[in-house]
């Protein structure tokens, strides 16, 4: 009695959801305080036995969970209790709470099976609808399995309201419990001929989803779907059917020919933009071989592009980018609209336009497009500016700079990019500057010029995002110092006091580059000396050609400048900087004495001469590009277990170190050595036998001989010749005949494209990781598609049995089924008969076929095409 009286009190004085909402708007406590009070109240009320109090509490809780992110998983059991109420309004609240909060792991899920079954069988169609909705959202394997019979019954319901919801649920049931396909599939297919647009829409929606998962399994339904495509005037249905055909056509190209015409028909006829767009998308993505259809689609795209509606503009650009890879003309035709869209106020439209513009880029127009884009980048907001820079960088570097002919121009462009105020793509530019240096020998002089300009630009040092570019510029000036006009100035730039703004790692690159410049200067000074002694003055002048001759004073001056710049750095905290500094200073100490003592350094026995020669050898190795897959090409030596759990090894190793193991350890040492070599110095591969063996390079050659397997195979193929030997540019010129049909518009074109070193394979493109995940999802859906296939196979078997006696005639009729479906009254009757025969034969054949057919591929009958 007492408990029931408190329940009455609760019931009478309980705050309803409306009270709660009102309270929320008037509350002065602060939101979180108010929520925790309300929760307290709900926790108390929800425990009461009275179902209306309980359901109101649950209702309030769902509200808080939906809009304020309150956890409601603790009330799962109460939701089950409320659902079991006989009253509709309680049930509704209960089901809503369940759909909102239950997931696969909810433990009380097991308790609702019977309740859901009861409601699915209810005479009240609204209760059935609640249960169906719930199932569509939270259905698990068990629920789907247990309730398949009920869903099957409802699929045949006479009430359209229930039937369409049952169809909506089927997808979830199939997904969770593929065996349900055997039971329900036939009823589902029958509904494709329904005259009720809602039912048709629902069933087409299901097939659309099934086709997305596994197009092959829906292929046999092509005739039925084709009929819908031609007959239906309901845009919702048509959009879905188009989606299905887009999927089907991708696995069965012959289908494209059949559907292209009706799709064009819809495109011409309809005024609904959503349908037009779906037609366009279907054509450009799946029917891109059907010229007439593509032409019409592109015409429609153009209509979209000139509209004021930003949605249509965006979608038009979007469709263009789908069509671009196969039909570039479509983009070129709309070039003006695309360029105009670049200055659109909507960032989405701008981005889409940018992607399109990049799709258009080729050898001939890369200069123009890049110029346009750089201008846009200068005046865009930072985000879009960097998007532009990134697009240009990735388009130009695609496939080892495929579209770049004039590398001098491109290198200058990279330099320009660094000067765009918003530029944040430093790392990408850094990578390309170095990459071009390594790959394109002919671009090096310009590269050095650009780097020099970057190094002396005072504005760049202060910008954090541009530091990587400076690092590349410093490296280039050191590595390719032979193209440098004035090494002295380079050294000054590298050691300028403002380099203190750089992070230590980049500073180290600066110092090391200065070292390279110094060695180069010394070396050229000595060789000049040598030649003056051994040759006549005339020959000397030609030998030193473009190089400024170094005088004794200038060398001494250079050494002093470097020493002066570096001495303060020898006490830096950063080890990398300190070490580099010490290296250079140590070298200077070694040479300085000789240098200051002897004016005449022609004696090759002097310390300074030997040291310089040695250092030059060290730096003379040319770096080449490293394949992205280089690491993978290092095969694991036998006896090296990488996947084994090393924890077990401890037991054995703990006692004594076996000789075998020590062997393998040294093996790994060697690997890491050679790999790090590969990484740091690029391939210092094989100075090879053709060049005179220097000290350092002969060591390398030795190393290569011993560990050839760890070097890139591109050199392995041909160990005799030097791996880094560039074919001369004019050698290649003989192979490429100039295109007589292409009038040379710009002067740059007359320039021969320099040789770009390209590794055999796996250089740029690596297999995208999606491929793998795709396979996995296929596996996930495999059981479902197998079930559908077997269901369809059974269906076709039935047909065949029926058609067997007069198969020839039947076949013809079938083929005309698509052609003239309008006057097919007679055939419809025949088909009905067929269906009957089918269902009887189905029962006979199912048991037999189930297993065998599972693996069989469904073959689309030829007559459909």
């Amino acid at each position, binding site marked *: 009695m007492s408990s029931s009286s408190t329940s*009455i009190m609760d019931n009478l004085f309980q705050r309803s959801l409306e009270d709660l909402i009102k309270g929320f708007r008037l509350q002065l406590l602060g939101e979180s305080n108010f929520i925790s009070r309300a929760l307290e109240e709900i926790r108390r009320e929800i425990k009461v036995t009275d179902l209306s109090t309980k359901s109101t509490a649950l209702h309030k809780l769902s509200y808080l969970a939906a809009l*304020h992110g309150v956890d409601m998983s603790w009330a799962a059991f109460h939701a089950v209790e409320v659902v079991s109420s006989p009253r509709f309004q309680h049930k509704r609240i209960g089901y809503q709470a369940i759909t909102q909060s239950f997931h696969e792991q909810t433990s009380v899920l097991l308790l609702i099976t019977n309740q859901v079954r009861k409601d699915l069988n209810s005479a009240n169609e609204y209760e059935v609808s609640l249960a169906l909705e719930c199932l569509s959202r939270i259905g698990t394997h068990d629920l789907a399995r247990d309730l398949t019979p009920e869903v099957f019954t409802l699929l045949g319901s006479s009430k359209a309201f229930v039937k369409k919801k049952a169809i*909506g649920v089927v*997808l979830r049931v199939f997904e969770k419990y593929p065996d349900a396909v055997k039971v329900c599939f036939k009823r589902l297919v029958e509904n494709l001929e329904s005259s009720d647009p809602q039912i048709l829409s629902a069933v087409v929606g299901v097939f659309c989803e099934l086709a997305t998962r596994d197009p092959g399994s829906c292929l046999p339904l092509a005739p039925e779907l084709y009929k819908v495509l031609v007959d239906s005037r309901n845009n919702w249905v048509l959009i879905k059917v188009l989606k299905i055909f887009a999927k089907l056509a991708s696995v069965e190209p012959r289908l494209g020919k059949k559907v292209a015409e009706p799709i064009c028909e819809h495109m011409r006829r309809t005024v609904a933009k959503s349908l037009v767009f779906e037609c366009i998308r279907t054509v450009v993505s799946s029917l891109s071989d059907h010229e007439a259809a593509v032409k019409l689609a592109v015409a429609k795209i153009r209509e979209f592009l000139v509209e004021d509606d930003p*949605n249509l503009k965006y979608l038009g650009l979007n469709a263009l980018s789908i069509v671009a890879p196969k039909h570039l003309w479509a983009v070129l035709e709309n070039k003006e609209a695309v360029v105009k869209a670049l200055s659109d106020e*909507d960032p989405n439209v701008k981005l889409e336009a940018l992607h399109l513009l990049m799709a258009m880029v080729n050898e001939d127009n890369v200069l123009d497009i890049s110029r346009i884009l750089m201008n846009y980048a200068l005046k865009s907001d930072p985000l879009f500016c960097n998007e532009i820079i990134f697009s240009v960088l990735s388009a130009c570097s695609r496939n080892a700079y495929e579209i770049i002919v004039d590398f001098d121009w491109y290198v200058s462009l990279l330099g320009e990019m660094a000067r765009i105020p918003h530029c944040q793509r430093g790392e990408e530019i850094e990578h390309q500057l170095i990459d071009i240096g390594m790959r394109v020998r002919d671009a090096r002089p310009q590269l050095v010029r650009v780097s020099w300009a970057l190094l002396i630009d005072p504005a760049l040092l202060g910008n954090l995002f541009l530091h990587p570019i400076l690092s590349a510029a410093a490296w280039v000036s050191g590595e390719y110092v032979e193209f440098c006009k004035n090494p002295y100035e380079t050294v000054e730039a590298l050691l300028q006091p403002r380099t203190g703004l750089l992070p230590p790692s980049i500073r180290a690159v600066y110092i090391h580059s200065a070292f390279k410049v110094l060695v180069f200067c010394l070396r050229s000074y000595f060789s000049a000396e040598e030649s003056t002694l051994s040759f006549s003055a005339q020959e000397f002048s030609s030998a030193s050609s473009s190089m400024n001759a170094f005088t004794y004073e200038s060398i001494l001056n250079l050494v002093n400048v470097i020493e002066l710049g570096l001495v303060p750095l020898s006490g830096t905290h950063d080890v990398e900087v300190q070490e580099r500094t010490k290296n250079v200073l140590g070298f200077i100490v070694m040479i300085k004495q000789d240098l200051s003592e002897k004016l005449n350094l022609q004696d090759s026995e002097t310390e300074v001469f030997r040291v310089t020669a040695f250092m030059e050898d060290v730096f003379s190795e040319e770096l080449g590009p490293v394949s992205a897959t280089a690491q993978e090409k290092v095969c694991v030596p036998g006896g090296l277990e990488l996947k084994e759990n090393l924890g077990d090894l401890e037991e054995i190793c703990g006692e004594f170190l076996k000789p075998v193991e020590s062997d393998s350890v040294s093996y790994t040492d060697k690997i890491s050595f050679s790999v790090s070599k590969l990484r740091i110095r690029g391939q210092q591969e094989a100075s090879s036998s053709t060049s005179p063996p220097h000290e350092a390079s002969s060591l390398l050659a030795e190393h290569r001989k011993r560990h050839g397997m760890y070097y890139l195979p591109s050199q392995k193929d041909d160990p005799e010749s030097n791996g880094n030997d560039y074919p001369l540019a004019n050698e290649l010129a003989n192979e490429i005949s100039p295109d007589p049909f292409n009038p040379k518009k710009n002067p740059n074109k007359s320039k021969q494209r320099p040789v770009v070193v390209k590794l055999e394979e796996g250089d740029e493109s690596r297999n995208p990781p999606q491929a793998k995940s795709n396979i996995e999802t296929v596996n996930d859906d495999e059981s479902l598609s197998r079930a559908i296939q077997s269901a369809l196979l059974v269906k076709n078997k039935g047909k065949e049995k029926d058609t067997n006696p007069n198969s020839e005639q039947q076949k013809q009729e079938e083929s005309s089924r698509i052609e003239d479906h309008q006057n097919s009254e007679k055939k419809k009757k025949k088909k009905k008969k067929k269906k009957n025969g089918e269902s009887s034969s189905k029962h006979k054949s199912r048991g037999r076929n189930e297993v065998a057919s599972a693996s069989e591929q469904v073959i689309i009958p030829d007559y459909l095409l």
Partner: protein
Amino acid sequence: MTCLIMLASGIHFVLLVSRQGKVRLTKWYSPYAQKERSKVIRELSGVILNRGPKLCNFVEWRGYKVVYKRYASLYFCMCIDQEDNELEVLEIIHHYVEILDRYFGSVCELDLIFNFHKAYYILDELLIAGELQESSKKTVARIISAQDQLVEVAKEEASSISNIIAQATK
């Protein structure tokens, strides 16, 4: 966050957010944990509320597309897959708004605040498992009013004095 599995087809979720960033309705057709839900709402309302008025109604977001449309002070957002039809979803949103309008009689934000559950029930008649199930406004209105009536009758019964007495003396 990329580990989200989108089980549902069609629409993954529906959000109603006010111009001030208050959430007015959420409906999830794909499984999201409660924490993820709050994060998604925060992220998306940040993106969408900051977009200017004359821009297109689509936003790319985590590899999906969010189609949104503003009606008065409310933003209606629906999340779909890349290959879904944006214009169709815009039509669904408009459809929903029209039904709400018909049901409440020129709907305003306050109607949805106080009848938040009704907005849910209407959405449930419109979409099932993220797919459009009813394209006739009249039918939805009829179904909803029939269910309302069912509830009204039951409510009257329940709140009658005799019923309360019967309960108390149970």
